Structures are given as structure tokens and as C-alpha cells.
């Protein structure tokens, strides 16, 4: 009898935990479903560490965009221009490198400056002039597409210099164990990351215990910590035992950590969420909505420029169609990863994982030789489904 009771209690608790973490649980479930399905239908081609490592490389560009696309969406704005901005910036960078023979450092500085300018442009119209972000960035999309054709005349420009392409297809070198079957530096970083995670988790657990805001039992906490540490190890080892960490992934990780920190620990991060949650209340709390939106778009455009560097580095040459529909992969990724399309809710890690899932979908469908027709239809349905889930779960909470 007592056993039964405690069983049902435990079941209740787990059920509650699952519903409270609906975002994370559903993200994990989606990933599991998609990956397992592809694993089966591709006869095991999908989850080889070579393909997964490849997938991470492919997904890096859009995931970088997703990091700040999350901020844009959380503040109840939109950016439909990210993909064409990436194409334009890439074309601009390639032209500098190939046609003007500008060196890599100067090219990168120029590219970042262009990013800032794009951000100022969007921030001015959307933040200060209160034009709908949807339309402003759609207009930009057209302008960037035109700009790309203007610079490249429809031809591809390349190849970029070797030092430039390192950002896209370079890997951390092996330092000590040059003959090992794994990348020693990457392994070292992995271990450091795991240790740092455990230390931070323990410290914040101690702190929340002291202030009496801790939730869940110690056992649960231990389980969670072990689980996440294991996930870090598994994800990293996919790369460690191939060619090691690519610079692209390191850039993604650094930006991800940076913005996760900004979101949690800076007034700007708080303001983004406050504006998305209730812009009127934010204004009456003394927040300058205009300035915050401007900042969001500057950050976002600079990050898009960084994504452009990574993408151009990987492909080696700029083409007129580069970046097409990247914004949709990033937006869908954000929403799949728990960013609310209605604003006010979202997280960086979810946005990255969500975008990686979208890339996985892409990658899997390519392995299956599904044509563009079906790829479009499937991606459209996934976006639709993700938004429907998001809006319905929010409605459920409001009542």
C-alpha cells in the first residue's frame, strides 16, 4: 500500500517536473524523434560521428545567427533580412579580398563595421521610428539581395585567402599528441568545460540553499548535473575524435556563452525580455524602448556579420544565392528551442540546439536524397507546428 502511494507520488512529481519544463522536454523529444527516425531510414548513415561532426559544421552559421535572432524575437520584433544580409556581407568581404587584395584582419574589421551600420539602419527605423520590424527587414532583404548582385554582378567571387577561410573550415591543431587518433587540445577544452560546469552548478546550488530558494532534492540535482556533464562530453567527443573543434564551433560557443551571460546578468538583457513581455510597463519602469531595440539590432547585425565570415570561410567564395532562407532556419530554430514568437520568453541554448535540429532535418533529408520540393514542405510544416505549440502552450498558461 505505502509503496503504491509513494510510487504514484513520485510519478506525480515527475509529471509535474516534465510539464514545468515543457520547453526543454519537448525540445529533447523533438531531437530524439528526428534523429532516431533519420538513423533508421538512412540505415545508420545519419548518426555516424563523421556525419554529426559535419552537421555541427553546417549548423554553425545559422546557429550563430540564432543566438541574437532569439533577442530579436523575444523583444517582439523580427528579422527577415539575416540571410540576405549574410549573403551581402559575404559578397562584400570576398570582393575586398579578391578584387582589392585587402588583408584578412582589415577585411574582418570592415565587415564588422558594415554589421554595425546595418544594425543602426534597422534600429533607427524599428526602434525610433516605430515601423513594423517585419516590413523594415523585408525591405532590407530586397536591398541586400540587390546589393549582392551589384557587387558581384551575379558571378561568384573567390577564392578568399587561406587565413580568411580558417574561420570557416579550420580546426584547432593538435599540440602535444600529434599522432593520436583524437585532438588533444579539444579534449583538454572539453574536460575544462565539464569541470567548470560542475563547479558553477555546485556554487549556485549552495547559494540558492543559503537564500532558501533551492528547488528539488539533492539527488535530483546530482542526477541533473551528471546528465548535463555527460551531454557536454558526448557532444564534444563527436568532434574530439574526428578533426577536433573547428573555429566555427568555437565562435558559436563563445557567442552563445557571451549572450547567455548578457541575457542573465546585464540590464540590457533584462530590458529585452521586459520589452517583449510588456513594452508599456517597461517604458513606465524607466526603460528606453527605443535605445534597447537599437542595441538589439546592432548586436544582431554584428553577429550576422560574424556568421557571414564563418560561412564565407567555409564555402571559400561568395555567390549570389548565399544565405538564402537562413533567417527562416534561425527563426524556426529559435521557436523550436523555446523562444516565444509572442515575445518575452526564450533562451540562448535552446535557440542554438533548435537551430541544430533544423540543420539535422536538412542534413537528414539530403542524405535521403529528398528533393527541394519536399524539403520546403517539411520545413514549412515544422515551423508551423513549432509556432502552434508555442502559442497554444502560452494560451494554456494565461488561463
Amino acid at each position, binding site marked *: 500500500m505505502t509503496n503504491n502511494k509513494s510510487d504514484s507520488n513520485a510519478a506525480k512529481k515527475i509529471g509535474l517536473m516534465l510539464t514545468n519544463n515543457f520547453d526543454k522536454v519537448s525540445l529533447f523529444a523533438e531531437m530524439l524523434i528526428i534523429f532516431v527516425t533519420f538513423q533508421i531510414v538512412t540505415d545508420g548513415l545519419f548518426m555516424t560521428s563523421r556525419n554529426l561532426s559535419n552537421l555541427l559544421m553546417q549548423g554553425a552559421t545559422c546557429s550563430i545567427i540564432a543566438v541574437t535572432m532569439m533577442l530579436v524575437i523575444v523583444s517582439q520584433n523580427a528579422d527577415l533580412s539575416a540571410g540576405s544580409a549574410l549573403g551581402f556581407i559575404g559578397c562584400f568581404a570576398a570582393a575586398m579580398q579578391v578584387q582589392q587584395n585587402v588583408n584578412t584582419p582589415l577585411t574582418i574589421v570592415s565587415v564588422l563595421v558594415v554589421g554595425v551600420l546595418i544594425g543602426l539602419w534597422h534600429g533607427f527605423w524599428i526602434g525610433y521610428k516605430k515601423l513594423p520590424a517585419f516590413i523594415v527587414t523585408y525591405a532590407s532583404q530586397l536591398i541586400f539581395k540587390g546589393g549582392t548582385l551589384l557587387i558581384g554582378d551575379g558571378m561568384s567571387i573567390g577564392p578568399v585567402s587561406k587565413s580568411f577561410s580558417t574561420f570557416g573550415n579550420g580546426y584547432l591543431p593538435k599540440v602535444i599528441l600529434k599522432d593520436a587518433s583524437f585532438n588533444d587540445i579539444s579534449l583538454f577544452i572539453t574536460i575544462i568545460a565539464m569541470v567548470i560546469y560542475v563547479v558553477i552548478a555546485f556554487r549556485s546550488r549552495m547559494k540558492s540553499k543559503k537564500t532558501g530558494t533551492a528547488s528539488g532534492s539533492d539527488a535530483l540535482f546530482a542526477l541533473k548535473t551528471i546528465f548535463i556533464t555527460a551531454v557536454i562530453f558526448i557532444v564534444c567527443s563527436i568532434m574530439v575524435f574526428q578533426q577536433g573543434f573547428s573555429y566555427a564551433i568555437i565562435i558559436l560557443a563563445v557567442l552563445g556563452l557571451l549572450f547567455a551571460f548578457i541575457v542573465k546578468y546585464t540590464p540590457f538583457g533584462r530590458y529585452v525580455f521586459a520589452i517583449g513581455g510588456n513594452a508599456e*510597463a*517597461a517604458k*513606465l519602469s*524607466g526603460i528606453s524602448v527605443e535605445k534597447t531595440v537599437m542595441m538589439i539590432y546592432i548586436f544582431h547585425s554584428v553577429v550576422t556579420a560574424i556568421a557571414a565570415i564563418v560561412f564565407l570561410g567555409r564555402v571559400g567564395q561568395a555567390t549570389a544565392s548565399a544565405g538564402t532562407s537562413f533567417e527562416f532556419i534561425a527563426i524556426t530554430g529559435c521557436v523550436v528551442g523555446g523562444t516565444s514568437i509572442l515575445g518575452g520568453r526564450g533562451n540562448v541554448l535552446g535557440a542554438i540546439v533548435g537551430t541544430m535540429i533544423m540543420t539535422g532535418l536538412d542534413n537528414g533529408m539530403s542524405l535521403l536524397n529528398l528533393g527541394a520540393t519536399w524539403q520546403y514542405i517539411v520545413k514549412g510544416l515544422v515551423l508551423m507546428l513549432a509556432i502552434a505549440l508555442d502559442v497554444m502552450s502560452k494560451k494554456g498558461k494565461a488561463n
Partner: protein
Amino acid sequence: MEDYILQMEHITKTFPGVKALDDVNFNVKRGEIHSLVGENGAGKSTLMKVLSGVYPKGSYTGKLLIDGEEQSFSGIKDSEKAGVAIIYQELGLVRSLNVCENVFLGSEKKKGGFIDWDFEYKRTKELMQEVQLDVKADEKVGTLGTGKQQLIEIAKALSKDVKLLILDEPTSSLTEKDTDNLLELLLTLKDRGITCIYISHKLNEVFRISDSITILRDGKTIATKPAANMNVQEIISSMVGRELTNRFPKQEHKAGEVVLEVKNWTVENPENPEKPLLDDVCFQVRKGEILGVAGLMGAGRTELAMSIFGALQQHATGQLFLEGKEIKKMKHPREAIKAGIGYLSEDRKRYGLILDSDVRTNTTLASLDKLLRGGVIDTNLETRKTKEYIEKLGTKTPSMFQLARNLSGGNQQKVVIAKALLAEPKVLILDEPTRGIDVGAKYEIYQLMNELIDQGISIVMISSELPEIIGMSDRIYIMYEGKIRGELNSGVDEITQENILYYAAGGKKEDDK
């Protein structure tokens, strides 16, 4: 036997926790102008919503008869069919459409499936003559003043062969001249046999046109009498008439020097240049006092607070003094908060809280600058501060990580107060601080106000609840149509609900009461 066009018998309508209408009887004779008066929240609008079918049959109890026949409206369309037309305070016209399109919106005259424009324009022209309005049928409504729009609304009602016309506070945003026109028109319509229900706070207007008057109070009918047998005093005391029990922890405060002063404060009304939102307002807030600001809805109380706080879109002209020094007028709430002025909106869900954020985030939102260490939020300090205010204000929440959405109204209000206090204001403006809060929590908010006064903060309390204004204020300003009409000092003047209502309904000091 009287000839009644409308009989509403034993109408009771309850909302969760509130009896909005309690066995109300309301009978209107054919061809009369019948005024319905009562305080804010007395149930006038609810009663009219029952009549117009906004609250369908079944959502209330009681009988509704028109021309002696029982009606069961399930929506506005049904009541319109029965000849009832209601014109609300906020006009229901589409500003980007022209006069004719508005008049026939929703009941377009069709010929062979398409709109019969010839007929519509001709009819609109006739209707404009009927309401004595000199506008062309193809003029855009948005370019017309409020008074003209009101007349177009009436024309729209007439186009539907209205028998019973209801006007809800029609003159609250009209100039005197427009008001005169409207009242004259109503008398003309009465001669043509149209019955009218007139809802207004402005008792002089009520007496000018009414045949009968019904008074509502706390959802009950107090009296229905011919207007000739009543006077202003009688109406006001029937409107107020409730007993004051000791629901207020009133303390005597010693007012110190002037903290905040406003001189010649004027804010233009973009929609009606003749009638500014605030008109040459002068007032002072002293250290250590609770200053009450009373007035009817639309008197400009919230606009006054918002314009001082820098949250109103239209900028004010006039002077602003803080602790004796003239300071620049606020362009953004950020500047006001920095200067030491706090403002709590009357609508805390819409303007006060980020509902999907937790208590801590909401509490510290306006003061993150003070919690920085090296440009980064010191979350330890943030947690300590939040905890301090949760304890100080007695906020009931499972933890500071609870979402604001999940708290009760009183506790949500405490979170908003905590946010304002954390910014260390000198003057705190509370707009309807106890709206939608249960009695126990109200008492706690009042006590808190007293404590804040003891700490040297000055409080301005805007409230529509007269007992609360009287129960808590050391001094009261009464606003009417964008102006401060009267001032009552606790201990000097006699402060009664009647006194306040007198000024709030437009009475002047010199006038004989």
C-alpha cells in the same frame, strides 16, 4: 396604466465575486428623456449592457420587456432590431471611412447584392439635416471634431429607425457649445417621439433635459422620480448614501515644505484642440502628506500624473518644481524616476507588471543601475533587496521566482509598489492603488501608505473611490474637465462625499449650492 416602452424588472447580474446589479427595476415611459445617474461602478453601464444584449439572456436573471413584450436578446444585433441603439463614451466610428460609409457600416443598403451608394448618400444627406450637422456625406470622419462625430453616431442610430436611444456619458469630451447642440438635438428628437436614456455625471445637464431620473447605487435602484420633484442635493446624497465604517487607518500627518509643485500645467488634446486634456493646472505636494486627487472618469487625473511622469505622448507646457528648484519637464519616465518621482498605473497588469517574469525581475526592473557591480547585475544583491521588500511589504508569494501572473491582485500591487520604492522616490503617485483588490489587502496598502509617509515620502493618491479618498487623504484636489476645481483640507474644510461630488460634477466655489 402608464405606457412604458422599456421595463426592466428584477435584473440581477453577478460577476465572479461581485453583484454588479442587484434586483434592479428600471422603467422608461414612451417619449420621455430618462436620466440614469450614479457613482462610478454603481452599475449603470452593466444595466445598459443587459439592455443592449451585450450580456445575453441567461447571463442575468430578471425580465426585460420592450413595448410590453418580453425580449431575449442574444447580442447587439437583436436589440438593434427591436429599435434600441446605444452610443458609448468611446465613439464607435471608423476614422478612416467617410460619413456615409460610417452611417451605414454593418447595415449596408444593397441592391442586387451590391451596395446602393446612390441611396446611401441621399439618405445620409437627409440624416445630416435631421441632426443639424453641416458636413458632406463623403468627408472623412477622422477629420471631424468629437462633437460632430457624436452627432454622426446619432444619425447612424436614426438610420436604423431607433425607438430607444441610449447615450452613455455623451458630453464627457465635448466643449460647451457642442454640448448645447447635443442637448438641443435630444429635445428635438423627443418631440419626434424618440425615447432617450441619458447617462451622465453632469447633473446640470441632467436637469436641463430630463423628464425622469433614476438613481443607482451599488447595483441597486435607489429611486425613480420625475425630475421636477428632485434637486441636486437630493440626488447627490442618494448617489452617495452609504455608511462609512472604519475601513481606513487614518493618521494625522504633519505636512512639511513643498516637495513637488506644478504651475500652469497645460496639455493639448490632439483630437480636440478646443478642449485641452489639462488646462492650466497648478498644485503642490507637501512633504509627509497624502494628497488625494478626486474626480470623475475623464477628468484628467491620470493624464496629470502621466504628464508629470513623462509618460504622456503630448508634452505639457508649464513649470515643474522639485524641492523648490525648477527642473526640466520629463520627456521619459526614466528621467522622472531618476529625479525621484514614482508612478503606479491604475492598470497594473497592462502598465505595471511583466506578467511572465518572476517577482524578483519585476521588483528590480526600474533600479538595475543600482545593483550593478562592474557593469554586471549583482544577483546576490538583487536577491537580498527583493527579499527585503517582500518582507517589508508582506508580499505573499511562494518564492521570489514565482511568475507575477500567478500572484493575487493585492500581492501583484505590492510587487509594483516594491519596484517603485526600490527606486527611492521622494514623491510617489498612486493611481487607483486599491482597484480590484480585496478588502483585507486594501487595508494593508493603506497602512503601507502611512508607513511611507513616516519615512518621509510624499504620496499622491488618485482614486475614484470617495470613501478611500476621504478616509486617507490629508488634503484633496478635485478635478473636472482637465482643471482643478476645488481643494479641501482635512481639519479645515468639511470633507464629505457630497462636497467632493459637487466639485467633481462641475460645481464652482462661488456657486450657491
